């Protein structure tokens, strides 16, 4: 049986969200409290297994007394705080952020973003046909996964997952500055010349599909990717004794990608190259 450590009991802080009193354990973020209170705040760069980077600014909310809006994903709740999640000011910033992203990045594979664009009445076309875009070609330099940086919103999650938050491989970093900033390995080399160990933990946290299994990338290109026809089966990796959980995504009796449950208390969604990509033998029918 897995025992989840409960930690020391935490004090409950009292504050208000949209005028309603809420109580949240000390140390929780505004976002935690919002979600516990059943309020939806959109997020893109926030990851359930990572320290918030608050780079996308789509989760901004108004806090009484604060000059600027604050990111719900990283600001810790304080007693007596008055948080408003749905003011005109917060909605305006979210709308603009969605417009800025959608006008410069390919968000076609970003879950939920289409709903938000509708909800906030964002019009990414308003910047005109000449608005600068990232204009990146997919980097297909290995057999396991593809880096399509035309879909990258620069959320830093892959860098954090590859670096000291999980994998400690440090194969990628943000390079360049401003609008020209891109995720890259050293000297912008192919992945095969880098420190990458192909654990795929960056794919696990990528919120936009910029990083994807080669199998998914190829099927999307061929038009055969069909999310609704896929089943997900969580099982245990058989390669070593750690016993990581694998979720096999299967379409037409073929494994098309592998993820891992983020709530697993041991691995938190992280795998190694074998668990993530070493499934070909399962479907080798010759």
């Amino acid at each position, binding site marked *: 049986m897995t025992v989840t450590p409960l930690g020391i009991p935490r004090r409950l802080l009292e504050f208000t969200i949209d005028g309603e009193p809420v109580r949240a354990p000390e140390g929780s973020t505004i976002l935690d409290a919002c979600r516990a209170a059943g309020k939806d705040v959109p997020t893109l760069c926030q990851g359930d297994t990572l320290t918030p980077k*608050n*780079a*996308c*600014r*789509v989760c*901004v909310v108004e806090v009484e007394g604060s000059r*600027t*809006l604050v*990111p719900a994903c*990283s600001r810790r709740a304080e007693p007596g705080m008055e948080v408003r999640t749905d003011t005109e*000011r917060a909605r*305006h*910033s979210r*709308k*603009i*952020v969605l417009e*800025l*992203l959608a*006008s*410069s990045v390919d968000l076609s594979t970003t879950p939920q973003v289409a709903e938000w664009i509708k909800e906030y009445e964002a019009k990414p076309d*308003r*910047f*005109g046909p*000449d*608005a*600068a875009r990232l204009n990146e070609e997919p980097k297909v330099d290995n057999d396991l996964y593809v880096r399509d940086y035309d879909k990258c*919103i*620069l959320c*830093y999650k892959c860098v954090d997952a590859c*670096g000291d938050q999980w994998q*400690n*491989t*440090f*194969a*990628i*970093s*943000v*390079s*360049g*500055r*401003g*609008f*020209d*900033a891109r995720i*890259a*390995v*050293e*000297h*912008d*080399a192919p992945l095969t*010349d*880098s*420190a990458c160990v192909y654990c795929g933990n960056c794919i696990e946290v990528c919120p936009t599909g910029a990083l994807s299994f080669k199998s998914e990338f190829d099927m999307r290109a061929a038009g055969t990717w069909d999310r609704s026809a896929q089943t997900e089966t969580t099982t245990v990796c058989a390669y070593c004794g750690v016993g990581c959980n694998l979720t096999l995504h299967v379409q037409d009796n073929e494994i098309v990608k592998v993820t891992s449950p983020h709530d697993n208390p041991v691995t938190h969604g992280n795998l190694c190259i074998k668990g993530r990509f070493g499934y070909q033998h399962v479907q080798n029918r010759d």
Partner: protein
Amino acid sequence: MDLHFGDSKPTDDERAAVDALLGAPESSWEGADRSDADLRWARGGREARDRRDLLLPGLHAINDRIGWISEGALDYLCRRLTVPPADAYGVATFYAMFSVKPRPATVLHVCTDLACAAAGAPGLCAGIEARLGPGSGVSVERSPCLGLCERAPAALAIKAGDPVRTAVSAPATVEAAVLAASAPDSAPEEPPAAMAVPQAGDPSLTLLRRVGAVDPSSLDDYRAHGGYTALRRAFALGPAGVIREVTDSGLVGRGGAAFPTGRKWQATASQPDRPHYLVCNADESEPGTFKDRVIMEGDPYALVEAMTIAAYATGAHRGYVYLRGEYPRAIHRMQHAVDQARARGLLGDDVLGQGYAFDIEIRRGAGAYICGEETALFNSIEGYRGEPRSKPPFPVEKGLFGRPTVENNVETLVNVLPILTMGAPAYAAIGTGRSTGPKLFCVSGSVDRPGIYELPFGATLGELLDAAGVRERLRAVLLGGAAGGFVRPDERDIPLTFEGTREAGTTLGSGVVMAFDDTVPLPRLLLRIAEFFRDESCGQCVPCRVGTVRQEEALHRIAERTGAAAADDIALLREVGRAMRDASICGLGQTAWNAVESAIDRLGAYE
């Protein structure tokens, strides 16, 4: 840390440049040839990783010697410091002064920013580029403000080698700039710093009293002009007494944010976490600002003494000066001053025989406006990309290396000297009730006597402009630099105080006062401001990274339009600008739209 390195090897020059900074490698773990001992003994670990903050000095060392940073050189530096190459690549590509692609050994930075643009930079650039084309051995780069606005237009030549050579040409002609780039050693010497102070010699000056009067290289001369009396008084008062004096004086930060200095010092001094650090923000990059450069070039020991006092008051034993990479003379003078002070026991283990230990290290910036943001500056010193951190936690609690840190601007620090020598009540009597003390203003543009002016808070804009000899046909005045705001020529009565400018709906910022006549079209200036912020955005948050690009595009579209033809784009600018102000992580994105907005609202640009 299990790092992966490529096969590229450094050249002998590159290796020598790094070794000159870090010393020879001790084992193959650090990049030396492998010996038998290396097979039995793993070195590195935490001790090596703790030197990460030497990454930026290391990149400078390579760039200074070779002119660019090759794969082999970067890999070798990473081995020496146990830094992942991808990380170091991210850092190297962050700064405008570094190149990871081959380029000529000499780079000529030609300023195309506001003051220089108004003084003919576009023509100068075209002339220089025609003379120094490909094959000339000089790479010509258009640069944001070089902080030489009183001598616009300006150019800075940097010739890599051992040692690196620099030459400033300002005011620059095509001839002079080409000479500076092709033979930096034989270029005429820069005029003394006092030339930037039209009031030099005026006995009423407080902060600029010594600029031009003392030999900036002589510690004895500094002491003969009243130097180190403030530090003696600080030791007599004790740390709490110094903080009380500074608090009572009403001193607020001069870098632009106007935060009460005494409160900042008190908050840091009372943190139980140790060690405490002192950081002097000398990364003066706001277009139109050059006051810190003049202080550091003309009176460097004043900053050394002021930092010693600040560190003593806040319990810090180590101070860093983060100095703009584009200020070679200020770097040289400050380094000399720190070395002299150390040799004479005014820095080191036992300052003035008082048993208090304090030392100063100078770190060079490498071309990034954002590193003037306090937390971005910490990241830059620590060897990371100069991206701002989210606050809270604030620097007084978790600053440099995660420790309680006081960060002050150069001008703020040198104000501490008169506070201690004349006493807080006398200091507070200068200026107005809420803005106390003397203030430095950087006046440039369409004036006869550009330079640094010292006036007590409360002087009006008109008085300052008259002192500087403002020219006819004034069209607009920019207060506070690119992050500040424009005012009309008829708003001469605005009192130059923090509260006065706020009431007038504008800002004092870092003290920039830039006058523009009608020779440069206003839309062209606004576009240059937008280009500046697009280039200088670090790219971390979406509102600033993409918002600055969208604003620049809109300003491009309406550069030649007015009235109804510009209305849609102005509405777009306002909407994007509002989100940038509300939702950006740091002050850069939050203020990037201020100047353009003020030009539309106050000056009626595009009407």
